[in-house]
């Protein structure tokens, strides 16, 4: 079957954002303000959910004219940067909030999972919370009765099931919450970034369960995530949002390219307008390792030089969203035997970069060319973006790297 199961037409949603308060410049004005304060407050609070004109001051369109369709059995990824409107879209689809305008038609029972373990009460036992959470998500008591053993089993909480949840570790709480959710049987399942919590092994288990569900039971899933490897793995199609606007819908592989391409240039090409340089980076890009090296990428660099010299190459890697430094790698700064020997004109280099200690996610790479402690030649700040789609080796490395610590990134010359 390839019937349309969700039809979204011109959905828009606006919110009110805080405006800067007018400050009093005299004492008398300040006194008047104190007296007026409750009246102003009343007006402000009253208008929180109300709007008059089309374009008012202090109004933010979280979504504007978004339309798309989802077919039955499709697993659609919804991607976009922070503030792109993903969560707002999910909140509208799950009926938590109303759209300002537009219309959505959905065929079938909808369950939304915007949080794991909604309604959990710390004083209640695990068993009681399963019923609490399950009924909030729209299950009936009888349905939960039937699946109770399976849910407890899946969560791995086992013998602690009759202990109040406040004594659980946060990991156990998440597991319990997710196993309730994993046993929902709606025709349409809406999932927000809930997989970012919980340990790696359990995440994999949940992803597996989700994939299974859509494949064998024909369930439609909408999946919002920053975890690109999860999106790639699960979603055949993806939708890209940008600043509340619909950008593109299509095959995940094609759409991901667009999404990532917008972050920064994948390939760095400099336009050189004068010859007043000594050494400059002309071009740089990253590719998957040519050789069969697991966990390595290949960095190509072309340097233009007006002199015969040797230089050091430093790379710095940081996360693309929060700009947190991840690591530093060097050829020649600390060991001058590693320095790159340059001839006049174009010089091509190729390096292998070890990415085993880097977590799944998007990164920016900066390049510095220097004569260590003597001269600074060129810097390309955040000139290349790359993405780690799969953790390469063991979980240990992945977990280590969640801390975004400063690792030495190993580089070897590839000549």
């Amino acid at each position, binding site marked *: 079957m390839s019937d349309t199961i969700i039809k979204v037409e011109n959905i828009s949603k606006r919110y009110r954002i805080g405006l800067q308060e007018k400050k009093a410049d005299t004492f008398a004005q300040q006194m008047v303000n104190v007296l007026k304060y409750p009246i102003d407050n009343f007006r402000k609070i009253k208008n929180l959910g109300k709007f008059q004109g089309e374009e008012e001051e202090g109004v933010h369109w979280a979504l504007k004219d978004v339309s798309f369709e989802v077919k039955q059995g499709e697993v659609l990824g919804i991607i976009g940067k922070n503030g792109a409107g993903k969560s707002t879209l999910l909140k509208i689809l799950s009926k938590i*909030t109303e759209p300002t305008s537009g219309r959505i038609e*959905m*065929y079938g029972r909808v369950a939304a999972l915007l949080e794991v373990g909604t*309604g959990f009460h710390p004083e209640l036992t695990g068993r009681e919370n399963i019923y*609490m959470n399950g009924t909030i998500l729209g299950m009936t*008591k009888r349905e939960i009765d039937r699946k109770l053993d399976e849910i407890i089993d899946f969560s791995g909480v086992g013998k602690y099931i009759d202990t109040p949840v406040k004594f659980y570790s946060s990991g156990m709480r998440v597991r319990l919450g997710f196993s309730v959710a994993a046993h929902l049987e709606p025709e349409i399942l809406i999932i927000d970034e809930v997989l970012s919590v919980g340990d790696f092994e359990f995440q994999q288990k949940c992803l597996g369960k989700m994939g299974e569900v859509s494949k064998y039971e024909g369930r439609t899933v909408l999946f919002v995530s920053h975890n690109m490897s999860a999106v790639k793995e699960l979603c055949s199609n993806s939708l890209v949002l940008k600043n509340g606007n619909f950008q593109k819908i299509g095959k995940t592989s094609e759409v991901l390219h667009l999404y990532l391409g917008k972050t920064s240039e994948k390939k760095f090409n400099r336009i050189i307008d004068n010859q007043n340089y000594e050494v400059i980076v002309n071009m740089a890009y990253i590719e998957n390792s040519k050789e069969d090296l697991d966990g390595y990428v290949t960095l190509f660099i072309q340097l233009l030089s007006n002199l015969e010299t040797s230089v050091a190459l430093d790379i710095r890697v940081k996360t693309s969203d929060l700009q947190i430094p991840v690591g530093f790698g060097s050829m020649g700064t600390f060991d001058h035997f590693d320095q790159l020997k340059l001839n006049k004109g174009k010089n091509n280099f190729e390096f292998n970069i070890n990415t085993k200690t880097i977590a799944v996610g998007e990164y920016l790479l900066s390049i510095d060319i220097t004569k260590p402690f003597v001269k600074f030649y060129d810097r390309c700040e955040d000139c290349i973006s790359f993405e780690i789609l799969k953790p390469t080796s063991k979980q240990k490395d992945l977990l280590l790297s969640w801390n975004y610590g400063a690792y030495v990134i190993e580089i070897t010359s590839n000549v």
Partner: protein
Amino acid sequence: MSKVSVIEPSKGWKVVDVGELWRYKDLLYFLTVRGIKARYAQSVLGVGWAIIQPLFTTLVFTVVFGGLAKVDSDGMPYILFSYLALWPWNYFSGTLSESANSLVANAGMITKVYFPRLILPLAAIFSKLLDFIISFIVLLGLLIYFQVMPGWNLVFLPLLLVQLLMASLGIGMILSAMAVQYRDVKYALTFVVQLLLYLAPVVYSTTAVPDQWQFVYSLNPMVGVVEGIRAMFLSRPMPWEWIWPGAIVAMAVFVFGLFYFRRMEKVFADVA
């Protein structure tokens, strides 16, 4: 193909969706149980507090109003006189604050999952019923101690309880919907509830109310409930003149509450 659901911006006043409420009846049950369990969790006396609270209030009232101020209690023991009133009053005041806070306290749920929001004040009101029943047992004890035999008009008790529930739920719905947007409700309620006590014949008798104010006074739904309950347990004729104005008000508040809540419902998630 299963049934279609349409999401659109809603306009104006809407009737409550009873079918949907029914589908979520299990949630109402578990939220009610959660409310009860959470209230008495990790307390030594547990539901014993539902006995101690009204009992001590009654004792204080008996000493202050019955003993020191010598308030007229229609010729019955003051302790029985005030307990008969405190029994429904405590339920009323308790549900008022509990339901008014129900939406704000569960804002985390409202912004993460859809379910009929009405379930929350409903559960608050139902979870208080346990206290109500337990304090009824104390009332039985008092009746036996004073050797009072309820009259045949006890058959009207369910009617008065419906009036009590409608008034509690009606006001509860209005206040909870307002409290989502205006947190002032929470602060105002704590002392307003205390003051309201004096607008109902809890510590004094209706005979103290001047004749020309009787009608206005009886518009308070709790006046009829308290007077009616006293009358039926003490085998007096039902004071219908005190009851019917309040009954109409209770019904009106309940219906208005339903519509008001429904109207405000759509902005809950945005402003909570």
